[in-house]
């Protein structure tokens, strides 16, 4: 009995001092001098632009990775062609790779002298602009929808899909009316993970964006820029905005969580 209490309080103490007290502390620091200084710090034109840019990038990323994530999962589970092991490994890579490396790869590819560097000469600006920031964010969030949909697809089997096909449904009809309704919760959970990760992306975007205030500065870049410029109220207030988004994500994750594991 004693051992049980010791373990419980040890674990709760660890979580408190690693997570809860520090996160609580940032709320305290933000509103130390009242609500309005913090409010004004996150409603400056630069901050509002950063928030808008973050939302835009996250929206494009979620759209791309949901469509292709479901397609990839479908192919991994239902497909019979070779190379699925390799594809599996590629999908997991962003989980293990440093975001700075992801950013640098894009710089080498789309920068001057890169294989696709010529695009800039034709007026297609990718690096230090929105396209590269989106590409970087898509890269780091590729695994989430796939990883959530694969086990669900495996579990539902193919019997209903085959029944629909026998009854004359086309491939797309089968997918839309049979497969999609069955996997929707898995997709939803994957979307939440993708969204949270896309909003919080820092390292890769930091390398490819050029970090120009009011132009290529996302919310996370805004936090670090304000901190480095000694505008602590601005940094803390923007961090609180991001933390509130994270809390919301955690609550939604709890609702959509599949029975087994977290999946990330």
């Amino acid at each position, binding site marked *: 009995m004693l051992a*049980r209490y010791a*373990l*419980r309080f040890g*674990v*709760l103490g*660890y*979580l408190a001092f690693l*997570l809860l007290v*520090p*996160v609580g*502390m940032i709320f305290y620091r933000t509103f130390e001098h009242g609500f309005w200084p913090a409010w004004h710090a996150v409603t400056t034109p630069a901050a509002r632009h950063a928030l808008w840019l973050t939302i835009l990038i996250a929206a494009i990323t979620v759209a791309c990775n949901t469509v*292709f994530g479901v*397609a*990839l999962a479908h192919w991994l589970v*239902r*497909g019979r062609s070779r190379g699925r092991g390799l*594809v599996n*490994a*590629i999908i997991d*890579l*962003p*989980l*293990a*790779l*440093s975001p*700075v*490396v992801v950013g*640098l*790869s894009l*710089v*080498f*590819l789309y920068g001057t002298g890169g*294989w696709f560097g010529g695009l800039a000469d034709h007026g297609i600006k990718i690096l230090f602009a929105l396209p590269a920031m989106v*590409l970087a964010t898509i*890269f780091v969030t*590729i695994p989430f929808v796939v990883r959530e949909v694969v086990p669900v697809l495996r579990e539902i*089997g*193919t019997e209903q899909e*085959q029944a629909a096909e026998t009854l004359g449904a*086309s*491939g797309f009809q089968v997918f839309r009316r049979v497969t999609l309704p069955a996997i929707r919760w898995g997709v939803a959970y994957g979307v939440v993970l993708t969204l949270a990760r896309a909003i*919080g992306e*820092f*390292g890769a975007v930091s390398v490819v964006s050029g970090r120009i205030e009011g132009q290529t500065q996302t919310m*996370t870049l805004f*936090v*670090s820029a304000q*901190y480095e410029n000694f505008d602590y109220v601005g940094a*803390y207030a923007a961090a609180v905005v*991001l*933390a509130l988004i*994270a*809390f919301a*994500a*955690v609550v939604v994750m*709890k609702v959509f969580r599949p029975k*087994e*594991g*977290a999946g*990330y």
Partner: protein
Amino acid sequence: MASNAAAAPAPVGRAAPLAGRALGRGLVAGYLTLIVLIPLAALTWRSLEHGKGSFWDAVSQPEAVAALKLTVVASLVVAAINAVVGTAIAWVLVRDSFVGKGVVNSVIDLPFALPTIVAGLVLLTLYGPDSPLGINIAFTRTAIVFALLFVTLPFVVRAVQPVLLELDREMEEAAESLGARPLAVFRRIVFPNLLPAILSGVALAFARAIGEFGSLVLISGNLPYKTEVSSVYIFGRIQSQDPGAAAAMSVVLLLISLAILLLIGAFRHWRVKHAR
């Protein structure tokens, strides 16, 4: 038998879906190639542009070696702590019951959802120069371990939790009725069953720690030879217009990531075999 039938779908003998499938396959392969493979190929190509010699020169610069060593050692420490604490947290969340357990369970996901730069800032407010506790670990190696523990918290917990939930209590009860002490029951019955899950969680945490950047930039101070980790070193090289050194170190990190993924694949295989 039933699972065998489900695993091998009957071929569909119509032309239209087949063409659609080929198109879908091409699109999916193209997407992965464009987003992931071509950029990584460009990186590798750049690192070897001036030959293997200059690659080795870049990797074996003292500052690069020091950064890599620090990264690996800190990640190993963090992985080891996570193995113990992560398993303990999962145990408490599954086997213990107390008021507010559901909230604690949700809180585990917070480091995943919280942007890494915010994680670094948050730790800095409590353990930095203005610490209300009077503990200032900013710009030390301890701070690096703290930040890494923060961002890697969920991995072992979420790997172990489902396995522990499904574990059959009968074996433990049998051992207890035969007079085994709680610690012996854990060591000889629970632990062997959890080991594959612990290892794959630890490997993921290690991989994450090796590449971590956002939570470290503010709190580590980035002092060369002292608190500069590999990803921050790469970032510094990019800033100071030294793409060769940045590319070489990036390829080293890429290789480490690939190696860890292979290892995780092996653990997963083991777990599936174990489950049978």
